[in-house]
């Protein structure tokens, strides 16, 4: 969408462009059509946003945080007069709420009152939501939760949803019956004053947060069951995640353990004290991947251990990941600090940037440096080339999403001497997006090999899927690829006739199944008699679900199908509820630098979102586009991505385009660049381009990787690492104190022409300098200009006195001794 100088006041125009800028629209696009002064103002505003802050002293930040936590603890303490056992139960919480208010009513009466209040509040909010904009109090659901917990008053709230919430099955289990639909994320929120003590309120408990997908706990009694956000667990409990799922365990001392998909962890020991004693945390990881951010502890005897079948890792104040891809193998990757990894009584220290692998029955491998990054795949096979860097694959290399040449992937691997890179994991992030199209229109002819839709010839083959009973004159949406010479090959044809809403489709994990409602990857899915469901689907299964988003916002499934090798993609349409972070139609998702976002999108707009689902269930959008609600225009609209063959006249992927003064051309486009084109097909067959926007520059680069290495030499303006020529630091941003022995991360980017640029060097670990023991210093008082001596007047009656340091020599001369008398 072309930003145009409108008739608004200058401050309105500037604000509109600022909002575009804040939404991620490139500056050069936002500057278009502005007056010279406004261009300068916008550029300056953009620059201000990037102005660096001064580096802060981490010890001050840490002390401030500790002070805030301590103060909050003091505020909460007087309220904790109930026993722990009482706090575990909802009834006790209810009683706690009632007691200070001297509400001498029966519990049953109170429940009735609360239920009525909740119902009224819910109805009122439901009505209000439809009639007036919601006041955004917190910046995000997570913040709202944090405020609710932190506030002594606000914590007396609990969400009530339009769905019935299952009661916990035990005193503190919090486990939901697997046959019930777990509490969904509320579509509407009301509050009722019921205390819910679900925080990591003491060192012997941890809290499960940021639950995504299917997360279950198992107690000593052997029962597994899905849990809700803020579930508290203790020693002896197990936690596991399903596919496309993740969770965070937060300990009392601030340490955090993140569980990735298909992971299982048991809490062996848990006494996560902050300062009044040693912090003791011991976990056993049976499978999957965990990431640990361990709070520093100065208490003697503190320990944070992760045990696997083959090894044990122990850390004090560090960040590291543990992968257990199979029973007899574990890999430790350290991001900060040091982890001591032990196997077969052999211990190796793994420092930041390093990795070690331990096979059961063997000692740990010698630590190697890691390499990670994102970039375009230009070669596959035994050796992959990603972001211009070669990676050897091996039997244990884990591929996610079937990446192909041209796709954009995440790679994680290791440097194995002599500059050999080994890939351990390659994750598809974005498909090669060139030469695709979508078209909406009526079916005019239907042949075996070709159809005509909206006047266009569409090729079909055995891979083309057709959804719905498509007939001549049916209204359909066709998606596919543009072949050489502009031939349109359909991959998917969807019937839009009688569509009750806007289409959606995604792959997710089944979390709950009820007669009319399912929960799939946290999204509430409605089913009805017309929904086709594969037989045998159970909780924990991965399914592909497609259907319609109805006008009332409900997601109605048309098909729910088992998928064995999940195509981890999603697509849906909804109203923009928030930008940064993005929430559309109630669904939160992430964006990346390469996410294509149509300019001008604002809160309240109707947009179509497509993207991929990462292993942990995170949704990452590859494209967010405005949905044109004017169906007459939509009927003949084609959107495709292709390479620019010529710009005078315009030709993209072999297709001749008509460009006029109304065409919005965004970006500095040249022949060879990849562009996204929106076209209206005129009755005479002309393809009139309404928008052409730059997707990738021809020389836009193949991506960047981060390479970890240890510094073997450094001097003024240069640094040396093994197996590389000396690196000139001119133009390279260096963060941290470079010295011999430093472990550094180099951000290496590769241009399309293969040239390599080192953009940044970050020091992530410096060896502790060996310091000589400090000279003995005199005992000092609080005021460092005074000292304490043992005063012996005339050699008798010795007693301790504090004197000015300037008088020390005189006292020593008459027989006094330094330090207090013993």
């Amino acid at each position, binding site marked *: 969408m072309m930003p145009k100088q409108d008739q608004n006041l200058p401050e309105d125009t500037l604000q509109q462009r600022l909002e575009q800028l804040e939404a991620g629209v490139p500056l050069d696009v936002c500057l278009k059509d502005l007056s010279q002064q406004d261009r300068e103002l916008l550029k300056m505003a953009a620059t201000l946003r990037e*102005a660096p802050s001064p580096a802060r002293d981490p010890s001050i930040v840490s002390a401030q945080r500790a002070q805030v936590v301590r103060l909050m603890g003091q505020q909460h303490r007087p309220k904790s007069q109930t026993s722990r056992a009482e706090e575990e139960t909802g009834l006790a919480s209810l009683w706690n709420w009632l007691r200070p208010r001297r509400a001498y009513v029966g519990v049953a009466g109170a429940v009735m009152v609360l239920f009525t209040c909740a119902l009224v509040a819910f109805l009122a909010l439901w009505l209000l939501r439809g009639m007036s904009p919601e006041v955004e109090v917190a910046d995000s659901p997570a913040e709202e939760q944090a405020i609710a917990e932190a506030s002594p008053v606000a914590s007396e709230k609990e969400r009530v949803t339009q769905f019935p919430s299952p009661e916990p099955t035990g005193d503190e289990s919090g486990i939901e019956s697997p046959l019930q639909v777990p509490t969904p994320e509320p579509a509407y929120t009301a509050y009722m004053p019921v205390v819910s003590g679900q925080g990591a309120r003491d060192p012997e408990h941890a809290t499960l947060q940021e639950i995504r997908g299917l997360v279950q706990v198992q107690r000593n009694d052997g029962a597994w069951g899905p849990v809700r956000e803020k579930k508290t667990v203790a020693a002896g409990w197990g936690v596991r995640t399903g596919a496309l799922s993740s969770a965070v365990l937060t300990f009392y001392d601030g340490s955090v353990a993140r569980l990735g998909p298909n992971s299982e962890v048991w809490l062996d020991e848990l006494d996560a004290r902050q300062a009044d004693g040693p912090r003791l945390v011991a976990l056993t990881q049976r499978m999957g991947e965990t990431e640990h951010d361990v709070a520093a502890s100065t208490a003697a005897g503190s320990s944070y251990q992760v045990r696997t079948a083959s090894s044990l890792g122990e850390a004090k104040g560090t960040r590291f990941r543990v992968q257990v891809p199979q029973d007899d193998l574990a890999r430790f990757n350290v991001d900060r600090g040091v982890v001591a990894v032990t196997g077969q009584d052999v211990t190796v220290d793994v420092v930041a940037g390093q990795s070690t692998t331990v096979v059961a029955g063997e000692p740990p491998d010698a630590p190697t440096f890691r390499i990670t990054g994102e970039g375009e795949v230009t070669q596959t096979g035994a050796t992959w080339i990603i972001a211009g860097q070669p990676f050897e694959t091996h039997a244990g290399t884990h591929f996610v999403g079937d990446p192909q040449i041209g796709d954009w992937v995440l790679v994680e691997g290791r440097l194995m001497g002599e500059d050999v890179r080994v890939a351990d994991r390659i994750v598809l992030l974005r498909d090669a997006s060139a030469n695709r199209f979508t078209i909406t229109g009526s079916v005019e002819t239907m042949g075996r090999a070709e159809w005509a839709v909206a006047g266009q010839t569409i090729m079909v083959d055995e891979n083309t899927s057709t959804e719905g009973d498509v007939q001549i004159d049916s209204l359909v949406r066709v998606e596919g690829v543009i072949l050489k010479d502009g031939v349109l090959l359909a991959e998917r044809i969807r019937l839009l006739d009688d569509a009750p809403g806007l289409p959606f489709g995604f792959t997710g994990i089944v979390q709950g199944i009820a007669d009319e409602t399912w929960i799939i990857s946290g999204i509430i899915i409605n089913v009805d008699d017309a929904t086709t469901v594969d037989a045998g689907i159970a909780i924990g299964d991965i399914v592909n679900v497609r259907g319609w988003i109805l006008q009332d916002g409900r997601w109605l499934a048309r098909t729910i199908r088992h998928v064995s090798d999940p195509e981890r993609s999603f697509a849906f349409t909804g109203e923009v509820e928030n930008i940064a972070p993005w929430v559309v139609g109630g669904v939160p998702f992430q964006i990346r630098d390469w996410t294509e976002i149509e300019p001008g999108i604002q809160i309240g707009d109707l947009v179509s979102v497509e993207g991929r689902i990462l292993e942990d269930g995170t949704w990452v959008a590859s494209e967010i586009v405005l949905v044109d609600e004017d169906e007459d225009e939509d009927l003949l609209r084609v959107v495709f991505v292709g390479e620019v063959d010529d710009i005078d006249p315009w030709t993209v992927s072999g297709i001749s385009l008509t460009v006029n003064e109304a065409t919005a051309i965004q970006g500095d486009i040249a022949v060879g660049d990849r562009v996204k084109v929106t076209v209206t097909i005129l009755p005479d067959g002309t393809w009139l381009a309404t928008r052409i926007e730059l997707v990738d520059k021809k020389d836009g680069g193949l991506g960047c990787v981060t390479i970890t290495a240890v510094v073997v030499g450094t001097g003024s303006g240069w640094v040396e690492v093994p197996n590389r020529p000396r690196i000139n630091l001119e133009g390279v941003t260096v963060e941290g104190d470079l010295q011999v022995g430093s472990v550094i991360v180099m951000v290496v980017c590769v241009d399309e022409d293969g040239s390599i640029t080192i953009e940044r060097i970050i020091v992530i670990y410096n060896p502790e300098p060996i310091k000589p023991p400090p000279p003995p210093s005199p005992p000092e008082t609080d005021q460092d200009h005074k000292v304490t001596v043992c005063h012996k007047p005339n050699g008798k009656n010795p007693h301790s006195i504090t004197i000015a340091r300037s008088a020390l020599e005189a006292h020593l001369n008459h027989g006094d001794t330094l330090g207090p008398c013993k």
Partner: protein
Amino acid sequence: VDAAGELYDRHNERIFRYVWARVREEQTAEDLTGEVFTRMVGNLAGYRTTSVPFQAWLYRIAHNLIVDHYRKQGNRMLVPLAQAEQVREEGNSPASIVEQRVALGQVQEALEALEPSQGEVIALRFLVGMPLREVALTLDKSIAAVKGLQYRGLITLREQLGLE
């Protein structure tokens, strides 16, 4: 208790950035940042009675502390224009300021030459990254007024930085 830490984690950097932009001394900025969160804890119970976003509420605390700070110091937040002139003369060509990265210290000095409410809006909008609506709620002004302050503030700032 964890939640208080979470709120601190979420906001402390930007609160510090905002305070530092207004007071210019790192140690003072650290002290005031700590005080902002101390007051947050003390007043959190009262927060629910407000209808402003939490972030706006937090910045109101910060704003009030900054005003108190200057009041106690007996200082005015404005500095003579001569000082702002000095900003231009310290070897920072206009082009280098825009085309490279503006040093926050230069912006701080230039900000002080702005009319206070313009300075507040510029700091909150661009140094903190707060949306316009929240700036309006934080400063208890209308959105139209904030838009005007933002526009005029940028023009004045540009002049002060010698970019006109």
